């Protein structure tokens, strides 16, 4: 067969080192309308249908607006205000009215009424063209409601589906069944978008931010989605399909691993949603090195009670009967709106009251309830529980947190409730914690380096700010030395030390981390197989020589080049 003209590759941002081949399923795409029947319609009936659809669209938009304001922010919710105004635009109203007078059914009347303004905006540049997308969204919503066509059910997709969408929201991804879905690609979104983080946690091949071209891909087309190269290959060659199929077979190591000379290193995964637990196990993680508990508290009107939390923690522990689950106590601040908490409107929430600061101050009750649930789960769950405190900056804070644990244990004793005090640890995320590391380590069982925050706070380079991306690199000598100092402080005080953060998931840095002396590494589930392989191929002597050279380096460039020596 001759090479087809349509053979094309679209590019976006790849978010997982995975590829897969599958069949396109569009989620919420422009609906194509059949030509209207020749029979005439009753204008009055069609206008009523339009009014009903508009009511329903308004209700949907208001609900989505509210959800977005809660989950993401008031600013982002603003787009729904614009959609609501477009819905009520007099130009659309009169356009629909005159089209139904001309015997068009309501859905066709809507399509016609929107056609001119969409074209008008489309021909303008930049930001004005985005308004055309807003109008399309509103139009398609109305047509969907008028034709009764339903959105694809993300919870019930054919096996091997590659989901294509404008964007995927948290409520969308929460429905996706990773066993059925081969991967996904979106028109919008970047590496830090919700969809991207979700894909990494489930090791799903995904490409985000492909742009308008994606809309031209047809339903049921066969595509290769390559999260490594950031490509979506349309109508792929047999060769390309086989490559993708081979690439999706990962060499998963389910057993714990050790270096070539026999030092065992625990390789665990970070988890932010209970739905991720099975995926994490499937990638061969030994346990959970960072169990974020925020999901329990977000998106609701009142905090979860002790029993609900107990259930969640026990489920995680039962998933890893032979492993360890490290739970981080609630890490929340002014950047996340939680309706039932009195979160301050801070100018810089990342330097404000968050993490352990809130747990010891405004949220003490919440903190005690969480600790009660954790101590009970420690007694009943199958795996070993460990608990760590976020954003500790002083020894006093740690002492206060440990006293709270004691008080909770005493109370559970008095109530005759089964419980156990788990291993306790501190997250090292601030320069102050690095300098206080010996005294912190003396008081706990372990330290865990949170490299994303430690890098941000050490380099004064905000997460998410692209202009300072080069500074925000854990291989900057200053960050590397802070990490080395933490490891040393832990071991000198008989504590073990782990790392959770993106650095731990980079297989190219595994040897360096082994050389620095880490006992445990925790990362996105998707990188567990590669890091396990890197641990097995490293040798402690070579690794520590590597670490020594890296710590002598004066620049990031030198840190990187000596890696290959």
């Amino acid at each position: 067969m001759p090479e087809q003209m349509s053979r094309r590759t679209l590019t976006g941002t790849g978010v997982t080192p995975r590829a897969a081949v599958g069949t396109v399923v569009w989620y919420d795409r422009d609906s194509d309308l059949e030509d209207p029947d020749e029979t005439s319609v009753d204008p009055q009936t069609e206008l009523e249908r339009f009014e009903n659809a508009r009511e329903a669209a308004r209700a949907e938009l208001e609900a989505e607006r509210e959800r977005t304001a809660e989950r993401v922010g008031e600013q982002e919710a603003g787009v729904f205000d614009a959609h609501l105004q477009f819905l009520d635009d007099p130009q659309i109203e009169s356009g629909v009215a005159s089209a139904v007078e001309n015997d068009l059914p309501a859905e066709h009347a809507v399509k016609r009424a929107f056609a001119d303004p969409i074209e008008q905006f489309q021909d303008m540049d930049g930001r004005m063209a985005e308004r055309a997308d807003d109008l399309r969204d509103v139009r398609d919503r109305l047509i969907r409601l008028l034709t009764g066509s339903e959105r694809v059910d993300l919870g019930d997709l054919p096996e091997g589906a590659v989901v294509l969408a404008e964007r995927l929201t948290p409520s969308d991804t929460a429905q996706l069944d990773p066993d059925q879905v081969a991967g996904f690609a979106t028109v919008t979104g970047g590496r830090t978008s919700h969809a991207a983080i979700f894909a990494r946690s489930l090791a799903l091949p995904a490409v985000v931010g492909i742009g308008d071209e994606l809309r031209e891909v047809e339903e049921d087309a066969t595509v290769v989605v390559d999260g490594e190269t950031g490509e979506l290959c349309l109508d792929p060659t047999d060769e390309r399909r086989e490559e993708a199929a081979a690439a999706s077979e990962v060499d998963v190591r389910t057993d714990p691993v050790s270096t070539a000379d026999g030092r065992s290193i625990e390789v665990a995964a970070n988890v932010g949603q209970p739905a991720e637990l099975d995926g994490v196990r499937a990638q061969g993680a030994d346990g959970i090195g960072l169990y974020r508990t925020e999901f329990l508290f977000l998106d609701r009107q009142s905090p979860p009670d002790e029993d609900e939390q107990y259930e969640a923690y026990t489920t995680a522990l039962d998933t890893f009967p032979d492993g360890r689950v490290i739970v981080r106590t609630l890490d929340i601040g002014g950047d996340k709106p939680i309706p039932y908490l009195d979160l301050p409107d801070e100018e810089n929430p990342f330097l404000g009251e968050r993490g352990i600061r809130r747990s010891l101050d405004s949220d003490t009750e919440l903190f005690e309830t969480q600790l009660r649930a954790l101590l009970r789960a420690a007694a009943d769950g199958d795996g070993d529980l460990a608990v760590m405190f976020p954003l500790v900056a002083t020894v006093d804070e740690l002492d206060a947190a440990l006293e709270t644990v004691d008080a909770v244990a005493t109370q559970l004793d008095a109530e005759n409730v089964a419980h156990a005090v788990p291993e306790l640890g501190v997250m090292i995320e601030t320069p102050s914690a690095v300098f206080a590391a010996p005294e912190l380590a003396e008081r706990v069982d372990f330290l865990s380096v949170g490299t994303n925050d430690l890098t941000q706070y050490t380099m004064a380079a905000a997460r998410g700010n692209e202009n300072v991306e080069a500074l925000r690199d854990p291989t900057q000598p200053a960050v590397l030395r802070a990490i080395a100092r933490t490891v040393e402080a832990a071991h000198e005080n008989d504590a073990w030390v782990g790392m959770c953060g993106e650095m731990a998931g980079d297989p190219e840095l595994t040897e360096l981390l082994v050389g620095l002396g880490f006992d445990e590494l925790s990362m996105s589930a998707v990188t567990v197989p590669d890091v396990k392989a890197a641990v097995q191929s490293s040798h402690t002597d070579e690794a520590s020589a590597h670490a020594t050279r890296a710590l002598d380096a004066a620049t990031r460039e030198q840190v990187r080049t000596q890696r290959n020596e």
Partner: protein
Amino acid sequence: MSSELERVVTVVPEAGLHARPAATFVETVTDADSDVRIAHATDDDDDTDLTPAASMIAVTSLGVEHGEEIRIVADGPDAAATLDELERVLTTPEDELGEENATATDTDATTDTNA
């Protein structure tokens, strides 16, 4: 006696007269009893350029950017009050428009900025 009043206002929100500022603007116009029309402010103001301000499509398609001036003409019983309110909308920075917790979202690393 004509109740028609007009005013020239400089648009303060960074987004210009788009998205949320535009939505708030149109909502204010729809809530008013006066008839409101707008245009870019130019040296020789000509009433034939005026666009109905109750239409989101019409308002947005003017393409008014941050720092530009627009001319607002209100005609009706609450013309003065409507102009005051519209001026307030146009001179309020976007992050102070609407509800209270509109800050800090730009520092959240997991926010989908393309949404």
